[in-house]
């Protein structure tokens, strides 16, 4: 069994002393070993009895050999011995005493390499049912990082053990080596390259510490932090900073095996499991911050945002797991699918070809396939959709080998390389050809015989004493045959059994005939030997004459019918085929709610140019090239700004774990594909503050966005906007309504809430001082939580605080006063009216609900007159939604301030436009109709405060993002597009596609006290 030793043996030695400093020496050793193997083989393993000697030399001749994706040698020779390729080429001499296989008509390829595998390192997870209290600190014993999701010390090579059945499964689809690692945690440690032979690990382990692996998923860690995607991002950022600090640390105040390992891995390729187009962009941003270019593991939806993916500059590892065809023949069930599901089903097989067209470098993985046997089928589908065969081979061999730094021994058929190669019946990327054998480490694997005779074809019986006319048809795959027999007029079908040199079939009720056999051997007349068996036990020797060779039928995939690729932005219902353009527009003869001193102006025109409001007045000069929107009878306002929103956020609105999480940023997790963006545009909303939730006293940083539907998350952010952060008070912070499990986190009372603030701001002050005192020589540990708090102290970041009861509102203002800053906004602030005088004195603004109350104890005294009272006390007051449904009716909510408390229409209207702009420090650029401000305008069918008002047009930066008339067309498009794809699905089912029952997406809409992040895992996995 031990075919070759020194090479791999050395490698495993390297591994045992394993660390990357030794890697450089490999090259030297390899050179040494290549010479050494020619002479003799050595092994540390003692033989029990007689040593088994491996001197076999295998020769494959007459094959089409794909050296790599660029070179094919036809009728060439491959020589393999002791697990390695001895020589390859045309016209090379065949060594004596070698075992020679004639592979005429067959193809040889380098075995594939899967860069993304957990082969042999699957760690059994503990039982997932868990009843204990929440865990805030690490339970990991030993000198490791504070958070259990950071485990760079994890070393796949140490955990690796061969697994015969797993290996066989992936060998069967052509893989010969994999990059394997432990799929657990955010920093997952190092991977190992192993080959897929069944040998002892000493021979299959090629390299350890090959790449360092990352993800956004905390895996088996039971620690509360991080509970959201933004938390995972923040944790990873802090880990990079801590590692830097640790590396420079001379005093070693604290030791950490995790950070030590993390630093050791810096120079390795870093692979990030992003599994979504936006997560690729998110991960890339982290990489940019720390000078790391990740290789991204994707989920196959990159085609939806190819420009953004390109700008990440990362290589990709791409799966071929397309969505299974849903069975949509029952229309009621088809209704469960949304257009984005349908579109993705149609487009997923195009992903690879789109990546190729855009010159992205990628490897292909089989990792996400539930059934590995679908790998070649799906890969061929991608080829049908335009992926070149050359690129397919490159993505399975050369590319992964290069990315993993093993292109000197894997990924090609070259002299001295490990003997990993596939022998296929034909072009492996064509239908009906299959892997005959997969040689790994020079050992043949596969159920099929290299010299399997092709029995397929049509035969007639030449001679028989008892039967006259018999026709036999043999078809199917070469190793899985089926037969049809016709005896006179009787036709019977059956499966076939392959023997060593023959094939047989047995029939029932076939006019006395029971079985037939065809032998591979022929007589002089080129007729095949055969045998007939009869029901009465008699048998007869016969001959078969082959009339026709087998011709495979090509089945047309339903998908081939697609004429053009259609991607919208976002790729779902109401997405734009073409993004809105900046327009020169005049809203003529409108009633304009200026929010300025002029108040409401009747019969005026408003000119929009270069994204800004250019002119307002009864008689303004209208440029000849301006598009005129007749606003007669209509009302034009500045757009609604929602001060408190949780739409458009991916995977958790709360990092509801630790008491203070000022380091997490909603800006990291904006979801530009949320349909609620479009819905709110239809309600006249142009901008929103996407707030962190209210699960902790010091929450995360918010993101200010304009609802630029169709653009990427980064492009939705308002450039140059001030930084804001969410604080929270009261029941949510005290975990009052979280259930009995949650009773150990500090604070559990309002007394403790105050102390949290005093404590953290005291720390922040100390940190600020330390940072100031630090010189270039100081090894200063940057703490992202503290930096965020220091920004507050330095008036560079502003607090929006979730608040209900008067006492704690008062308290936070005192804390702020004592630390020399001002609370910017109290949000909810339902008892604000009780301390309005104190709020006025502090100079804080208010963003409240029009009429919510009684949903928990602390809002028992909430009143709908709150906004009116606050306004009358001279406080900048806004009305917000905190609700995706109400967010599109904020005009109605503003009207309630008119109803409850009698605030004038103009002032009530400002509460959803200018006032939130002021609270968000955006009033210089938006919030009113004023020359020079951004053209963020909404055209209403009538007085926007009326229940009858509808939005005609919503414009942001001079671009029209919502238009009632276009919306009608969109609805029609959605219907037509849905039906087109549903028909394709039915066609695919009829064409033989396996189907599954349609499932509705489980979508979450967030409120600020929403703790659940169940989509967190759903979306990532």
């Amino acid at each position, binding site marked *: 069994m031990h075919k070759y030793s020194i090479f791999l043996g050395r490698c495993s030695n390297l591994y045992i002393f394993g660390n990357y400093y030794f890697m450089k020496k490999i090259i030297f050793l390899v050179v040494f070993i290549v010479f050494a193997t020619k002479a003799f083989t050595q092994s540390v393993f003692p033989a029990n009895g007689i040593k088994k000697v491996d001197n076999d030399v295998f020769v494959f001749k007459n094959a089409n050999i794909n050296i790599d994706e660029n070179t094919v040698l036809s009728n060439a020779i491959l020589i393999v011995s002791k697990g390695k390729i001895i020589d390859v080429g045309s016209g090379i001499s065949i060594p004596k005493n070698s075992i020679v296989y004639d592979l005429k008509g067959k193809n040889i390829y380098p075995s594939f390499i899967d860069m993304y595998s957990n082969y042999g390192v699957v760690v059994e997870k503990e039982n997932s049912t868990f009843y204990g209290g929440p865990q805030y600190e690490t339970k990991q014993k030993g000198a490791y990082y504070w958070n259990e999701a950071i485990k760079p010390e994890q070393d796949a090579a140490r955990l690796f053990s061969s697994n015969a059945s797993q290996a066989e499964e992936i060998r069967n689809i052509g893989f010969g080596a994999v990059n394997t690692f432990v799929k657990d945690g955010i920093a997952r440690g190092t991977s190992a390259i192993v080959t897929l032979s069944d040998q002892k690990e000493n021979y299959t382990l090629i390299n350890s510490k090959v790449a360092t692996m990352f993800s956004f998923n905390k895996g088996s860690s039971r620690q509360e932090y991080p509970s959201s995607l933004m938390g995972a991002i923040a944790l990873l950022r802090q880990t990079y900073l801590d590692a830097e600090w640790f590396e420079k640390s001379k005093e070693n105040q604290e030791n950490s095996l995790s950070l030590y390992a993390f630093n050791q891995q810096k120079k390795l390729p870093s692979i990030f499991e992003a599994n979504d187009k936006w997560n690729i962009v998110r991960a890339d941003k982290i990489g940019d911050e720390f000078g790391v270019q990740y290789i991204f593991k994707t989920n196959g939806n990159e085609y939806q945002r190819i420009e953004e993916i390109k700008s990440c500059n990362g290589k990709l590892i791409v799966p071929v797991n397309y969505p299974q065809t849903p069975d949509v023949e029952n229309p*009621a069930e088809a209704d469960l699918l949304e257009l984005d599901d349908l579109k993705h089903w149609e487009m997923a097989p195009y992903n690879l070809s789109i990546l190729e067209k855009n010159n992205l470098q990628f490897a292909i993985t089989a990792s996400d396939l539930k059934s590995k046997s679908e790998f070649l089928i799906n890969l061929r589908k991608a080829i049908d959709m335009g992926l070149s065969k050359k690129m397919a081979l490159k993505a399975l061999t050369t590319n992964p080998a290069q990315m993993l730094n093993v292109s000197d021994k894997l990924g090609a058929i070259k002299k001295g390389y490990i003997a990993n190669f596939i022998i296929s019946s034909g072009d492996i990327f064509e239908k009906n050809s299959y892997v005959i054998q997969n040689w790994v480490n020079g050992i043949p694997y596969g159920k099929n015989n290299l010299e399997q005779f092709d029995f397929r074809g049509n035969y007639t019986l030449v001679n028989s004493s008892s039967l006259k006319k018999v026709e036999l048809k043999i078809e199917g795959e070469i190793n899985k045959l089926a037969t049809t027999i016709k005896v006179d007029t009787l036709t019977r079908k059956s499966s076939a059994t392959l023997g060593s040199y023959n094939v047989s079939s047995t029939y029932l009720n076939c006019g006395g005939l029971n079985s037939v056999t065809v032998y591979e051997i022929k007589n002089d007349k080129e007729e095949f030997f055969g045998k007939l068996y009869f029901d009465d036990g008699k048998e007869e020797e016969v001959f078969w004459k082959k009339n026709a060779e087998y011709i495979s039928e090509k089945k047309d995939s339903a998908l081939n019918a697609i004429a053009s690729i259609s991607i919208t932005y976002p790729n779902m219902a*109401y997405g734009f085929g073409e993004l809105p353009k900046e327009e020169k527009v005049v809203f003529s003869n409108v009633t304009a709610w200026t929010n300025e001193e002029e108040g409401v102006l009747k019969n005026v025109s408003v000119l929009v140019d270069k994204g800004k409001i250019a002119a307002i007045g009864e008689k303004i000069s209208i440029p000849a090239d301006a598009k005129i929107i007749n606003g007669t009878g209509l009302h034009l306002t500045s757009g609604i700004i929602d001060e408190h929103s949780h739409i458009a956020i991916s995977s958790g609105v709360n990092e509801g774990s630790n008491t203070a999480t000022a380091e997490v940023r909603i800006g990291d997790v904006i979801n530009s594909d949320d349909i609620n963006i479009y819905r709110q545009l239809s309600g006249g909303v142009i901008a929103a503050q996407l707030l962190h939730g209210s699960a902790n006293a010091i929450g995360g940083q918010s993101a200010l966005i304009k609802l630029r539907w169709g653009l990427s998350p980064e492009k939705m952010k308002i450039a140059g906007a001030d930084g804001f952060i969410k604080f929270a008070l009261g029941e949510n912070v005290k975990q009052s309504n979280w259930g009995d499990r949650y009773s150990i986190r500090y604070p559990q009372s309002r007394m403790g809430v105050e102390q949290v603030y005093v404590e953290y701001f005291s720390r922040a002050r100390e940190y600020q001082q330390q940072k100031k005192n630090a010189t270039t020589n100081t090894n200063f540990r940057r703490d992202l939580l503290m930096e965020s708090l220091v920004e507050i102290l330095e008036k560079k970041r502003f607090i929006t605080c979730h608040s209900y009861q008067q006492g704690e509102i008062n308290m936070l203002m005192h804390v702020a006063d004592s630390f020399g800053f001002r609370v910017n906004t109290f949000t909810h602030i339902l008892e604000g*009216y009780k301390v309005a005088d104190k709020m006025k004195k502090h100079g804080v603004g208010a963003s409240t609900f029009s*009429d*919510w109350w009684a949903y928990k104890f602390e809002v028992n005294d909430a009143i709908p*007159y709150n906004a009116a009272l606050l306004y009358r006390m001279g406080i900048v007051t806004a009305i917000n939604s905190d609700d995706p449904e109400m967010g599109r009716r904020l005009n109605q909510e503003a009207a309630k301030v008119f109803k409850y408390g009698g605030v004038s229409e103009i002032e009530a209207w400002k509460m959803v436009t200018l006032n939130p702009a002021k609270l968000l420090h955006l009033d210089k650029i938006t919030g009113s109709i004023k020359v020079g401000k951004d053209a963020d305008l909404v055209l209403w069918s009538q007085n926007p405060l009326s*229940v009858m008002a509808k939005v005609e047009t919503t414009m942001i930066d001079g671009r029209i993002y919502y238009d009632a008339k276009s919306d009608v067309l969109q609805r029609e498009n959605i219907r037509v597009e849905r039906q087109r794809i549903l028909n394709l699905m039915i066609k695919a089912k009829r064409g033989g596609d396996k189907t599954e029952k349609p499932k509705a997406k489980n979508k979450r809409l967030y409120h600020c006290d929403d703790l659940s992040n169940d989509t967190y895992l759903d979306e990532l996995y």
Partner: protein
Amino acid sequence: MIKNITIALVLVVNSFVFSQRPTPAAEQKNEVVIKNAILHVGNGKIIENAFVVFDKGIIKEIGTQFNQATVSASTNIIDASGKHVYPGIIATNNSLGLTEIEAVRATNDLYEVGSINPNANSSIAFFTDSKVIPTVRSNGILVVQSTPRGGFISGASSILNLDAWNYEDALIKSADGIHVNWPDIDSPNFNSDDKDAKEKSEKGNSYVKRINSLIDLLLKAKNYSGTQEKDLKLEALKGLFDGSKKLYVHAQRYNQIYDAISMCKKLEIVSPVIVGGAESKKAISILKKFNVPVMLQRAHSLPPNADADIDYFYKLPALLQKEGILFCLQYEGDMEAMGLRNLPFLAGTAMAYGLEPEQALCAITINAAKIIGIDKKYGSIEVGKSATLFISTGNALDMMTNNVEQAFIDGRTIDLNNHQKELYHRYSQKYGIKH
């Protein structure tokens, strides 16, 4: 002892200063005339410059030429010039009175143990002293169908007026119908009720299995004679077959609606009602054929999925109106009790999206009364009916103009003050704000 008395006195005095809720109104003693009003009859008609006369809680006369001489000196004459008079709004399918503060478990009387509770009657738990009720009343909602939640068969709803000393006084109809949560094939967006979802997964039963179990139960109830061993649940269900109780089927998808109505017809259940009915526009013909009314999903709801028209629920009422389906608007969903005061504005939104103004009003008055079976007495301002009505200075369906000045339940003059107004006045005084 003296100390206790002092405390008691202090409490009494305090209650004058600030009462938790207004005192229920006394019986109507004197005849009332509202004159010069814009009268919204509630049956689709509007009468300008109208007068209404009511006495002993009953409407006696409606007309346009009010003659002062015809009434006695004790008659209370209200001049409603330029103001609107509406029938009291009827809130169907709501948990008002069964929950006070959602997050405080002790204040919730919505759910009973187990999944089959037809015998649980909401009126028993109806909390007439709720602080929420007066705030709802202040916007013109005067009658509620108080409805339990959860489980497969949630329980029986009851119809009550919103001004009473106790539930018996408030009752208009006890156990008017049984509420069933129809199983769904797969619908995370609808039926957002967590308890229901949890139960569904615990049972792990398929759609068909669960329906079969319901059919079994109803068949038993149909054949229950009362002479056997007493079965409270079957006894409670019995009324479905003689028409004394309605069957409120909470169902959103059209296939559910088809199945529910088919079951009711086969089992001869007299009065089925669909509650929710998000996809009722896809089941028009069966709703029409069997005259099954619909209590529509809250109009202020997000569309059922990303592909749906963004104004899906806004325009659904107008679609049903056009098809001639009897429907009403209701407020089931998040914060349904405290948010119930927004019910008139659902009608307002429906009006913006295609309902005629008076049709929109019907959707929260006479239609609701018809569906829950109290239209002989409530739901419109017509002679012989209960004087349950209110006066608003402007259009009550628009939040900008809804301003209820006076309200009457069975002729009784309701105190429209509430906890929130009290706080408003108290703090306005504190800050010296005049309004």
